């Protein structure tokens, strides 16, 4: 009994480790008055150790705690994605939170709590764990969105995120309730064994649909996307960066685990619903992004569009598309963190100065930043040899193999629309003269390092996709 507990704790080491790390950082923050260096370094080193733990438990594929948490394999890979996103966010935000006056130690442990939540959300094999992970991820993010509490836009974004996030939780948990009532259990693997019998129960399918609504809110798919532009524009830039990469990655990982890998719903009526969500997200996200003047708001609509591309992978189902979606998540995470990071570097201390016009003449002031942002924009378009290209490629291949050629066609056409608004940023940076109020970028050594890591990652994955693909393939 004790032995089993010990083994299970060791096999879930990344999650256990993150819980301990978060609590340590809370205590450091509570016990000392001077901010900030200790929290920063402890968080960073702790995250790196946890990445090591996740690699270490990778071969231990199975379940822990009587089948309620997944260990190794898929859980490790997703944990590494979230931990990397957290580490890059913390490094990119080091100078930024000073600049906007959010230099509280809370920033770090809230990020750590969010990461813990993401890991349990994506590794939960009991709907209870999934639900608690979802909330552990969401509640600290409501705080982070409004961490500059005297800023009008940030508090407004926090309120909107909170109200719509809690609203979507209601749907999610009502869905779980109905599924529990129909099956008598909340264990995903037990439900999956009799999934064909349950699939004919109307209430079970209503429950699954309500859970899908909850997921769609979290990934920001149309028509549940209303909060995305407002929240990404209003929140502090690095918080938006973490939301658009980490949270989206977590929600997609959990969606893959529950709906595609275990329930294998992808031959039922839910499949059609997901395909409709996907098309709506791609079309509306890309078209509305065309008219945006604010860089963060444009990236918000672009993130809706990217959710649409990833939903193509969810619709297609099967091992190839799981690998494709995970690959896309890695590519998107590096690209978008970098792009938001550069926006945070040139932002003013009152959180203004993120309009696309504020990027005018960036090439004259900071040639390196302009070139790197150009790389990120090309990766978001999906041009080779950048990471975004292979992300889209693998998803489209999976869709065609599973007979969804029409979805691929919609995806390619909307990608071509997106060229316009991504390239406009590049044109503004390189070819337009500087405005009157010139903002100097402030980022510090850590920021430069994290940005270099993100840019190198985008290039490396773009040139040698097998580096990531080998890890994310054949997880089930």
């Amino acid at each position: 009994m004790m032995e089993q507990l010990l083994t299970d704790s060791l096999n879930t080491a990344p999650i256990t480790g993150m819980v301990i790390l978060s609590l340590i950082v809370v205590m450091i923050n509570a016990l000392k008055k001077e901010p900030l260096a200790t929290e920063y370094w402890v968080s960073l080193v702790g995250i790196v150790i946890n990445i090591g733990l996740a690699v270490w438990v990778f071969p231990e594929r199975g379940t822990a705690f009587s089948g309620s948490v997944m260990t190794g394999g898929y859980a490790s890979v997703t944990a590494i994605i979230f931990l990397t996103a957290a580490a890059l966010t913390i490094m990119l935000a080091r100078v930024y939170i000073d600049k906007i006056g959010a230099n509280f130690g809370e920033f770090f442990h809230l990020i750590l709590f969010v990461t813990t939540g993401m890991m349990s959300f994506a590794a939960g094999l009991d709907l209870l764990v999934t639900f608690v992970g979802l909330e552990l991820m969401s509640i600290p993010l409501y705080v982070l969105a409004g961490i500059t509490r005297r800023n009008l836009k940030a508090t407004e974004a926090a309120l909107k995120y909170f109200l719509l996030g809690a609203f979507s939780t209601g749907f999610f948990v009502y869905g779980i309730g109905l599924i529990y009532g129909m099956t008598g259990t909340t264990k995903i693997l037990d439900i999956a064994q009799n999934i064909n019998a349950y699939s004919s129960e109307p209430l079970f399918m209503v429950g699954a649909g309500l859970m899908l609504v909850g997921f769609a809110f979290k990934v920001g798919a149309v028509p549940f996307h209303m909060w995305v532009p407002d929240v990404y524009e209003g929140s502090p830039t690095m918080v938006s960066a973490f939301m658009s990469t980490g949270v989206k990655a977590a929600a997609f990982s959990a969606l893959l685990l529950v709906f595609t890998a275990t329930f294998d719903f992808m031959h039922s009526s839910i499949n059609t619903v997901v395909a409709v969500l996907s098309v709506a997200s791609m079309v509306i996200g890309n078209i509305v992004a065309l008219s945006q003047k604010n860089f963060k708001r444009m990236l918000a609509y672009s993130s809706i569009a990217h959710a649409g591309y990833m939903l193509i992978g969810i619709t297609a189902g099967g091992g190839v598309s799981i690998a494709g979606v995970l690959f896309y998540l890695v590519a998107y995470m590096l690209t978008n963190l970098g792009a938001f990071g550069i926006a945070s570097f040139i932002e003013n201390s009152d959180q203004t100065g993120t309009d696309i016009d504020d990027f005018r003449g960036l090439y004259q002031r900071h040639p390196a930043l302009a070139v790197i942002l150009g790389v990120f924009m090309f990766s978001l378009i999906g041009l080779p040899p950048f990471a975004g290209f292979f992300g889209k490629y693998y998803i489209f291949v999976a869709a065609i193999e599973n007979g969804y050629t029409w979805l691929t066609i919609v995806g390619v056409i909307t990608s071509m629309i997106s060229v316009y608004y991504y390239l406009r940023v590049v044109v503004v940076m390189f070819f337009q003269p500087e405005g009157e109020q010139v903002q100097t970028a402030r980022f510090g050594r850590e920021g430069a390092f994290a940005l270099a890591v993100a840019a190198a990652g985008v290039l490396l994955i773009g040139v040698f996709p097998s580096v990531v693909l080998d890890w994310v393939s054949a997880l089930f």
Partner: protein
Amino acid sequence: MVPIHYYLILSAVMFITGVVGVLTRRNAIIIFMCIELMLNSVNLTFVAFSAYLGNETGQMFVFFIMAVAAAEAAVGLAIVIALFRNRQTVNINDVNILRW
């Protein structure tokens, strides 16, 4: 014993009341109360199913939902207070620097 349908219909009605409230009311506090109503209707669903199936998982789930709802209330009310200090209003129609 009261048949399970009665509980399910009651909780569905409560849930829909909450959803309609969130979509139509304009006061942030009342919207938040409607969200709590939704979560409580879920609790009722879980308890009803739990008693019907003779299986305690559902009752355990309810405790987790209550804990989470309490945490959410703490954070949510703090956000509403921060907003009120900045704006002197909690009406979401007036909260519109960002287009809603």
